[in-house]
């Protein structure tokens, strides 16, 4: 494992050090004492595995295409901005706009996520991005979501798992949310339905991967306690400017 001490290192130098390590053949990189450096692991390809200790800065893993990034701490805003593939595991909380316009890959957050998680999430063919939040999320979850899967586990109590205006502008993909979401917290473009057997198979797979990433032994979720949110239409604003 290649180790970098990021204490006091400017983000440009840090990212140059990372790229140097990769061109030297590093397959696993540990970055210690990260604090606020932005753009870490951006646009990187391949199967490298990063472990970050500390609080990485904004736009972590933007445009990332393949690597695995483990954050032992909290993440800030815009993690996985337009990410294409790979895995992100956040042991603490995530900031706002988690998975902004993400197109593939997976994010697992042990704690809470901020506002606008999964905004503009999209999918195409076999590339179906996944965001799993162990705790609760802020307002505008899945805003303008066009594809992919979001699961919110609502720890510790499964109450008020998501904020206001959940799914506003959603027109593709699916959300699984533990607990009830009152109608007045839903965007106009989504409806609640009950997960079917196919959904439960997907959820079971998601939950077992969540437990594996965070080494949780207990499996206590009642799949019946999840609701499913889907868009009412795949083109909610088609008539905004022109009335057909």
């Amino acid at each position, binding site marked *: 494992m290649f180790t970098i001490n990021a204490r006091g290192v400017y*983000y440009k130098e840090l990212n140059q050090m990372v790229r140097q390590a990769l061109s030297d053949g590093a397959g696993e990189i540990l970055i210690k004492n990260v*604090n*606020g450096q*932005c753009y870490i692991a951006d646009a990187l390809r391949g199967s490298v595995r990063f472990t970050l200790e*500390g*609080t990485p*800065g*904004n736009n972590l893993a933007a445009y990332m295409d393949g690597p695995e990034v483990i954050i032992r701490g*909290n993440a*800030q*805003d815009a993690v996985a901005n337009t990410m294409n593939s790979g895995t992100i595991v956040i042991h603490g*909380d995530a*900031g*706002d706009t988690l998975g902004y316009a993400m197109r593939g890959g997976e994010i697992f957050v042990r704690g809470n996520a*901020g*506002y606008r998680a999964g905004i503009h999430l999209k999918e195409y063919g076999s590339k179906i991005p996944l965001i799993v939040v162990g705790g609760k999320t*802020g*307002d*505008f979850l899945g805003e303008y979501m066009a594809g992919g899967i979001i699961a919110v586990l609502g720890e510790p109590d499964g109450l008020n798992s998501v*904020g206001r205006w959940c799914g506003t502008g959603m027109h593709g993909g699916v959300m699984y949310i533990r607990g009830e979401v009152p109608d*007045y917290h839903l965007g106009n473009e989504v409806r609640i339905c009950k997960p079917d057997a196919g959904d439960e198979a997907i959820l079971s797979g998601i939950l077992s991967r969540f437990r594996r990433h965070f080494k949780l032994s207990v499996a206590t979720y009642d799949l019946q306690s999840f609701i499913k949110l889907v868009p009412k239409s795949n083109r909610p604003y088609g008539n905004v400017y022109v009335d057909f």
Partner: protein
Amino acid sequence: MLREGDFRIPSGCAISGIVHRKGRAMSGESIIRSIALMHDRSNGLGGGFAAYGIYPEFRDCFALHLFFDGQGARKDTEEYFSRYFVTEMSGPIPTRKNAFIKNAPLIWRYFVRPKPEFLSAGEKSANDFMVERVMEINGMAGGAHVFSSGKNMGAFKGVGYAEDIGDFYRLDEYRGHIWTAHGRFPTNTPGWWGGAHPFTLLDWSVVHNGEISSYDANRRFLEMYDYQCTLQTDTEVIAYIFDLLVRRHGLSVDIAAAVVAPPFWSEIDRMPPDKKEMYRAARIVYSSLLINGPFSIILGSSRGILALNDRIKLRPLTAAEKGDFLYVASEESAIREICPQPDRVWMPRGGELVWGLLAGSALADSGACPEEINGTA
């Protein structure tokens, strides 16, 4: 020709604030380190700080900080002062050479008291009298700007990156129990010394990340209460709004927050009846003081700090606690830079107040008498 997109300036303003709730004083070094970590959020066209508890030897005087275009403006202003004030002490604010801070104006401070004859009729509080004088000087276009006018506090600001401004003003040599800071990335207006944050009036100070689309609506309403907006930056109105609502009209800060970042009507409709009535009234009476647009702000006062986001949280804000310290900043890393292991870290919701009041302080809760009614400072 250099085209747009050939290089990128990753910026978006930075704010940071620290308060020790039991009033323990600290030097300016911590807040400089915190704001410096977010260097790339600003672009060198504005930086500044507010510090509370720094002038205990003049705690009863208004500490006026001024920018002058030249010695003529200073002499004219001092003549004006001699009409209205008893000046206990005055002099240039100490600065040190910093290679990145250029074209500084003359920067002076005056510790003053209003002459008793102006207050003797009892019609005016000393605070109201000071607000009038500040508005008058800043409105005269005489090359003088008051950028700080509170007691036992001061603003220090200018054109440059915040950490360089902090070094320039020698903030490591001051000790205060509340500090706020701003790194500026000006939008819509040029960066100039008076336009840097914080914006202040009496002991209010505001640092702000965002943009106020309602600036002119807010400004017109404030002008009816004799506030003059002369500093060419939208943030100025926030300082005056809180002065009007909390000091003059005696609203509690949570109602003032519900004026500037109100709940949506649909949410007000779901409130219990008495709360609903209060929030409806606040929105209706002060509809012109709603701050429209994205913002995260830290409001400083001698009683503590408050942090607030716009109601749909279009700008970042993180808070943390460690013992008696409360920290707020645009980024969590800016807090961890000076407090690596906080007891608690959280991201406040849009429109949710983060309170950092000093022990035993209350910001004019609803039981207090507003100055408009009891006429005293």
